[in-house]
């Protein structure tokens, strides 16, 4: 029997979806191990979060009322103490920017194994088998972890959010936070500049990725967007290179878009990009690589060189 501890994540007063996805992953594991599912929520209005986290399958909710927003020092201290107090075998957290800002420290402090960015989990006896991707999603791997406790971060949107009302016991956990050990302070948040175009409002997005090779080749995509009366967006590398402003970036750290049609041109489909556009009604991918991860979610695909296809497409509309 192995107990599971999941750690909820919230920002600016709202629980993030992954908190409820963690409950589903945690409940599945608890079912396999015959253990209990514990949930911890740290900082902010913990009682309100606890109410929202009380879903079917949750046995206990631990609230740690300390500070307002995420601080990795507080989270690291609270979670390591909770793991000891509960005797949890598996700690599940989000493979998010904040998850990766404290869970590796938790694993190191507890001197236990860490598996990140997990897309599948199962247990058999004392072995936890985690499924992960490698090489930008080109292959999947399974890794076995024989030791407990172990810390696992799960990728967002891989498990459904937990539904159904629960009847978990809510308990305040008195974590002993050593304030002298807090060496970082969060001073605020800033939204990335919006600019004049809101790509999340567009019906037709022509989106360009690394396959465009050179900045001057963007003219070709601009020409296509003009011919189609579409809005131009991009994947991360184009914005990183400074070829398009940040308000054009589709993805986890950019904007989430849901157009009628999304044309992905020279975009391989890294998970962070897919997170921002998979809600599009129709996805078209133009890419020479038939095995690119974008092909897994494309409704229509052209396995050809964008420098041949795009001019031909412009021709169709001029």
């Amino acid at each position, binding site marked *: 029997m192995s107990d599971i501890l999941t750690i909820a994540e919230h920002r600016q007063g709202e629980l993030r979806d992954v908190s409820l996805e963690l409950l589903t992953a945690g409940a599945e594991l608890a079912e396999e191990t015959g253990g209990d599912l514990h949930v911890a929520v740290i900082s902010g209005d913990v009682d309100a979060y606890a109410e929202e986290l009380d879903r079917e399958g949750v046995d206990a909710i631990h609230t740690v009322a300390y500070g307002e927003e995420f601080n*990795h020092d507080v989270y*690291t201290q609270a979670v390591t103490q909770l793991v000891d107090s509960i005797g949890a075998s598996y700690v599940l957290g989000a493979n998010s*920017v904040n998850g*990766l*800002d404290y869970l*590796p*420290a938790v694993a*190191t402090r507890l001197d236990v*194994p*860490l598996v*990140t*960015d997990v897309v599948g989990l199962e247990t058999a006896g004392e072995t936890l088998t985690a499924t*992960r991707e*490698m*090489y930008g999603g*080109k*292959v*999947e791997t399974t*890794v*076995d*972890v024989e030791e407990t406790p172990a810390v696992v971060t799960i990728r967002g949107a891989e498990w459904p959010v937990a539904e159904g009302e629960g009847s978990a016991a809510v308990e305040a956990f008195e974590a002993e936070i050593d304030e002298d050990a807090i060496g*970082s*302070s*969060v*001073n*605020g*948040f*800033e*939204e990335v500049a919006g600019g004049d175009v809101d790509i999340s409002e567009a*019906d037709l997005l022509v989106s360009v990725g690394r396959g465009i090779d050179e900045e001057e080749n963007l003219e070709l995509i601009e020409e296509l967007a003009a011919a*189609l009366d*579409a809005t131009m967006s991009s994947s*991360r590398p184009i914005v990183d*290179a*400074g070829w398009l402003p940040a308000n054009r970036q589709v993805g*986890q*750290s*950019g*904007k989430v878009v849901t157009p*009628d*049609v999304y044309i992905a041109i020279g975009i391989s489909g890294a998970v962070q990009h897919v997170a921002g556009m998979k809600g599009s009604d*129709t996805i078209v991918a133009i890419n*020479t690589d*038939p*095995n*690119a991860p974008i*092909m*897994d*979610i*494309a409704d*229509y695909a*052209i*396995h*050809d060189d964008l420098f041949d*296809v795009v001019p*031909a*497409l412009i*021709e*169709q*509309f001029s």
Partner: protein
Amino acid sequence: MKVLVPVKEVVTVDDAFEIDGTAIDERYLSADLNEWDDYAIEEAVQLQEDGVVDEVVTVTIGDEDTEQTIRQALAKGADRAIRVWDDALEEVDLLDVGAKVAILESVVEAEEPDLVLTGVQSGDDSFGATGVALAEAVGTQWAAVVNQLDLDNGADVASVHRELEGGMEELTDVDLPAVLSIQTGINEPRYASLRGIRMAQRKELDHQTLADLGVETEAVAGDLELTSMYEPESESDTTVFDGSADDTAGQLAELLREKGVAQ
């Protein structure tokens, strides 16, 4: 101020490939400098050019073949490099976070840098955890996914922006010494100049074994066992447009008109 930059040579995979057991057959692989580390090197070199940093040292876990990648970092402006390798590492299938940290921890202890700049993740195994785990192991502060770094000469605090999800950034002050994991886009990595490449040949590249660093062989065996590798099954029912570029463009044009998004 001294900056240590862990630099990784990552494997990139051809579009078509075959899997051999729990690895991709070598014929389909090439080696490259990890993209995130390129930004970390650039950040360190820019701090040096601004007079904030005196020395930039890189450390790489890798066999002799990785020296070409290490020279790239030296050509971009790093002052010297450390390469860690020995037979025990040859045997390891998957060097997990704990194993990497065991090695890097000993290098940090020997070098005593004021700042460690890692890439957010590596393009091959994508653990995304080495920087934060290392900071905890050596008892310094840290910040993950940094896309802006402000550091003044002689300061004991670094002001960073952390890139959160959904176009949001967190503004955080971090006490030094610290480990920061650097996100792509924080700067524009330079190409190595010919002069830089020539100078890199003369810079120190120090090879260290686990024994040199005082790291036990067991410490790098890792907690994770890679048990299988396979191509993910595609769940999609994608319609593929076939034919010449004119043919496929014609089919796509028809689709866009059908959907009513283009005329």
